[in-house]
């Protein structure tokens, strides 16, 4: 009987890190020194706990899949072949040891519906969501909101079903107190999942909000078109952190604290310069906006 030596070789390197509990696809080749085609013959995979080997075959793409255990850290596998005897040829056994570094699955966060500005000392609500890179169910897990003094300001517990339109963003609405100091405040949302079938990393995300004194005065802004004097609807009004939008009559009302502000407006197709306003009582201002010529994309002319 003829004897041929064999070898198992990787066609591509093993990734440096693989998420724990996932299936790792390896591209490899089983070769015979005499050139026999061995790709249809079975291989054996022995896992890190040295359990009895699982049999597998190299597919048409030159791949096999191995199941990485759902725990973090190095995991050793051995892919073995043979011996195999058929048609008067003995193919000698061979093996390929490899180590996979299993890492936790990632998580990521979203924070939304953050009101701004927020009156100092008042309570406000935000929505927070967490997503597992493995699309794991995160319902019931705790999420914490930490203020800029590293104190937990609020906690939430992720709800049963994901946020609409997402695949697996589990969320909660959390109420927390605004600081007493005015200005731009920062918070950190922290998520440290525990008790999941697959290991996960924790994560954090920041959000900001403008903290302002209680508004005392009503600012009424009317926006009209310069030529026709017609009111313009849906114009965004901005005064620093304060905002509003005009209605059908071109009017917007914004409650403001005392102070000096830059009044800016925005609506696509219109233009008006910013102007300073001093708020120390109820105030009404009128802004004339110029219509910008409608852009015809075919008229790609400039001077």
């Amino acid at each position: 009987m003829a004897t041929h030596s064999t070898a198992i070789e990787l066609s591509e390197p093993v990734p440096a890190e693989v998420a724990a509990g996932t299936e790792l696809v390896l591209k490899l080749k089983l070769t015979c020194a005499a050139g026999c085609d061995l790709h249809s013959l079975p291989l054996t995979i022995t896992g890190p706990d040295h359990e009895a080997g699982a049999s597998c075959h190299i597919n048409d793409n030159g791949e096999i899949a191995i199941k990485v255990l759902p725990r973090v850290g190095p995991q050793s596998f051995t892919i073995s072949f043979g011996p195999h005897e058929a048609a008067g040829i003995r193919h000698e056994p061979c093996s390929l040891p490899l180590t996979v570094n299993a890492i936790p699955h990632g998580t990521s966060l979203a924070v939304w519906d953050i009101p701004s500005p927020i009156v100092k000392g008042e309570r406000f609500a935000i929505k927070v969501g967490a997503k597992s890179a493995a699309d794991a169910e995160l319902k019931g897990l705790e999420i914490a909101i930490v203020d800029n003094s590293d104190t937990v300001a609020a906690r939430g517990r992720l709800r049963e079903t994901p946020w609409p339109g997402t695949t697996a963003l589990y969320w909660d609405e959390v109420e927390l107190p605004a600081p007493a100091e005015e200005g731009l405040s920062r918070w950190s949302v922290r998520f440290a999942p525990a008790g999941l079938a697959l290991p996960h990393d924790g994560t954090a995300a920041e959000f900001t909000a403008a903290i302002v004194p209680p508004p005392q005065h009503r600012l009424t802004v009317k926006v009209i078109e310069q030529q026709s004097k017609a009111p313009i609807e849906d114009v965004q009004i901005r005064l620093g952190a304060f905002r509003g939008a005009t209605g059908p009559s071109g009017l917007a009302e914004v409650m403001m604290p005392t102070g000096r502000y830059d009044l800016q407006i925005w609506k696509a197709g219109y233009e008006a310069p910013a102007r300073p306003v001093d708020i120390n009582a109820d105030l009404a201002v009128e802004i004339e906006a110029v219509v910008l010529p409608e852009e015809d994309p075919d008229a790609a002319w400039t001077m």
Partner: protein
Amino acid sequence: MGTQDRKDKGGAPEALSRRSFLSKGAAAGVGAAALTGATTAEANAQIKWDHTADVVVIGAGVAGLAAAITVRDHGGSVIAVDENYDIGGRGMLSGGRLHLGGGNAMQQKHGIKDTADQVYADWVRFDAGSARYSDRDLVRVFADENVATYNFLVENGVEFIDRMIGPEAASTIPRTFVTVEWHVPSELIAPGRNRNGSGLVRRLEASARKKGAQIFLRHKMTKIIREQDNSRRVIGIAAMNGSNAVNIQAKKGIIIATGGHTGNVNFRRTFDPRLTEEYQQACEPWVHQGADGELAAMELGASLWATAAQTREAGAAITKTRHIGCRWGYSSLVYQPESPMFRLARATGLTVEDWQDVIFVNQNGKRFWNEVDGSYNFFAACMAWNGDKSKLNGGGPIWAIFDADGAAREKWNTKPPNVDPDGFFFSADTIAELAGKIKNPYQKQPISGAVLQETVARYNSFVTAGADADFKKPTPLHKIEKPPFYAAWSTPILHDTLTGLRTNTNAEVMDIRGEVIQGLYCAGESQGGFAQHGLARCLTFGRVAARHAASRTA
């Protein structure tokens, strides 16, 4: 291709057998000479011509069709070849805006006084970027031919919307009017999108065929054949019709009307090395501006001309993608599902009405400019080097990032066929997750989730504060915070070819020593020297070239 080739009434050649291919040679001249050991002249004498005409026009777009008709009007025979399966070139997808004045009948009807002298004076203005770099000899020709070109269009059945527009660009007098869109929906490439240029090219095609011009579609010119070594006389072209080689003799002249170079990455980088492969070309996949005519002529020693016009940083050479989330989102062109090009274009794109609703990030996941701006400063920022050591030129992809609220404000449906999820549009539950999903052939490395998250958080803090401290976006209005989140391809897209081959005032191509290459002409976007955007110069110089070519002695 999904549509039938339009019938070539001139008669496309029969498919050639392999034996005849070998006997004729795919490209005569040097190649054949090498095979046989003969000189170029002897090799050229051995060429077996499959077709012969007085004038061969390379390209059946706006300039090419105008040229073909004009040759017939002057009693010559003409064959126009086009690599595409249908006529029209980029004119088919244009808005049909014609910039012709000089006191034509349309202007007169609307009480607009104009003269050729005024056209000339406007289009040599030093204070107009679109006029400053032109060859004034060519501008004079253009000016003098405005009325005649208008009349040519009327005589050949082109219809116009009865409205004058302008003044536009360098013109001080209204000179723009628009053709009526072609009335046969099945013969449109971008139905329902006001691509009125279809009315121009289809009418010209009909007239050309009626007058006996032959139009060979799916014929790609591969070489311009010249008579002998060091001679400047061109005598025909070699072309490929599928896998069949064809030689077409031109007894009087050859007119290059191949539509410019914008789609040829190597060629366009001659003028601007920043324009690497990630910048797509407007009007693809319908037509590709491959610099075929320029390259073929330059192989004969032809010169480029007025190259400053290409990089003048005004007009539509580089444009802001308006329809994001698809590969070709040029501002005035949307491929709808009904388009015969849709299976290649793959998505309509999401039309942006207000740039406040998105932020732009570069391939590193960082903002780099005020999103509302659409100036050449914006393009420069897009194309800036941002740290990729493997690719120093070009800036890589630009991605528009927005959230569920932004999509709602814009009334976007973020599903196919509006977006192309195969490399040009992505969605995710969180910003960090979104970063990991952005995979595209031009995105050389993954975007870090932490970086993109920080970018968005920083921008949101500007919205909170009411001012963009980084890039002065006016009144940053909307946070990007509500899931799901989206990334849409928004890389600048290239359009106008504004430089090309040097010609004299007869549109005869000139070489690098300033000599005419006998029998070779150029018109349209492949012609250098008059960088006016649009159709008028293509029509005008197509006529000028053809008139002169037809008058040559065979």
